[in-house]
């Protein structure tokens, strides 16, 4: 089975990998490129743990073929912090204890970034519906929503 050679940009850096034609982008990220920050919770697009940004658009990496990434730019959780400074969302998730086991946290932070990019000053309801595609079983969502609202107010005006 001949593998495909895919050239992409991931977190601002060129990256290339080999993949099977039917391989998902999630599998290519985790095994091909060793970026295990994006997690698999269901492989059917229903849990949000594999959320990434593909050309700036929030998508489930488990429902994208790795081959589709040819020539496209992606952002994963590993790309959110700059050097040793965390993204405001990462910092607020820690300050609000908005995570317990943490398996859903990467997906939530990437989805929250996409939400704040589109709506810098969201209401609680807009945050809840914007993040309805990310399942969390530990927190009951309360502290996650507070962390995102807090990050939004801190980031207002600055495009992080």
């Amino acid at each position, binding site marked *: *089975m*001949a593998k*495909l050679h895919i050239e992409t940009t991931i977190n601002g850096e060129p990256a290339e990998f080999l993949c*099977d*034609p*039917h391989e*998902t982008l999630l599998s290519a990220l985790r095994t091909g490129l060793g970026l295990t920050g994006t997690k698999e919770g269901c*492989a*059917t*697009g*229903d849990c*949000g743990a594999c*959320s990434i940004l*593909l050309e700036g*658009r*929030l*998508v*489930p990496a*488990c*429902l*994208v*073929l790795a*081959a*589709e990434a*040819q020539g496209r730019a992606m952002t994963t959780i590993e790309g959110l912090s700059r050097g040793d400074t965390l993204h405001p969302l990462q910092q607020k998730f820690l300050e609000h204890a908005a995570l317990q086991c943490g398996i859903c946290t990467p997906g939530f932070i990437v*989805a929250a970034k*996409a*939400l704040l990019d589109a709506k810098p000053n969201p209401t609680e309801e807009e945050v809840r*519906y*914007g*993040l*309805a*595609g*990310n399942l969390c079983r530990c927190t009951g969502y309360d502290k996650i929503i507070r962390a995102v609202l807090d990050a939004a107010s801190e980031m207002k005006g600055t495009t992080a």
Partner: protein
Amino acid sequence: MDAIRYESPRSVAEAVRLMAADAGARVLAGGTDLLVQFRAGVRQPSAFVDVKRIPELMSIAIDDQGLRLGAAVPAAVIGEHAELRRLWPGLAESVRLIGSTQIQGRGSVGGNLCNGSPAADTTCALIVNRAQCVIAGPNGERTVPVDAFCIAPGRTVLQHGELLVAIRVPRPAARTSDAYLRLIPRTEMDIAVAGAGVSVTLDAAGVCTAARVAIGAVAPTALRVPGAEQALVGSPLDEASLRYAAEAASAAARPIDDRRGTAAYRRTVAGVLTRRAAALAAQRARQGTDRG
């Protein structure tokens, strides 16, 4: 997994050639249904034909004729199109209801239609907006009304070698508007247990001169409900006419029991949603500025 191919045609013609040459090939737009079925072993394509690099399938255009919506345009992109949301609020609503934000980043109206689910959110809204499906195939292009596009659960009118290129929606007449509502147990993420789309046109006095009603998840395909339409036409869309329309919708429904809901429940709720969608469409039509 013998050799599955990945193709990424740049034109409709190239896509048609690929589809015609391989009966096992399947069109890949958002993949939110196809890749789940592939992963579950329900579908074994011999090739994925990724159509997202073909301009005609990825564009949105509105002219005085109406809307031309590329079959592969992601729901999220449609949701951000202000003019489309203004002219067809019910259609925009149905598109926004397809899954979560993540699914919206991938799922398309064309994909929703071609998956052929009786519970598909956009089909009812497309039917009541008199949409037409633009199909390209080995012997050229043809157009099919959306009411006839899905023929059974998971089966559409597409022949071997054909693919859905775009959906055309005529510009709404003056004092016309639509609405789409669905019933899901949670507030997001679920497949519709029942759905209803309504479009109404009012005259200057507020009397309904034309109406279209379609209900989803209550039959092998989305259903138009002429009985409900007749109940609305000629009335001022008051409580009584909406109630008759609801009863007609419930009567027309042919639901089944499954893991998502009971038949009796779907029948009742199809009526409730028809009444509420008709009220919302009427309110929008009354408020609507002249969109002629």
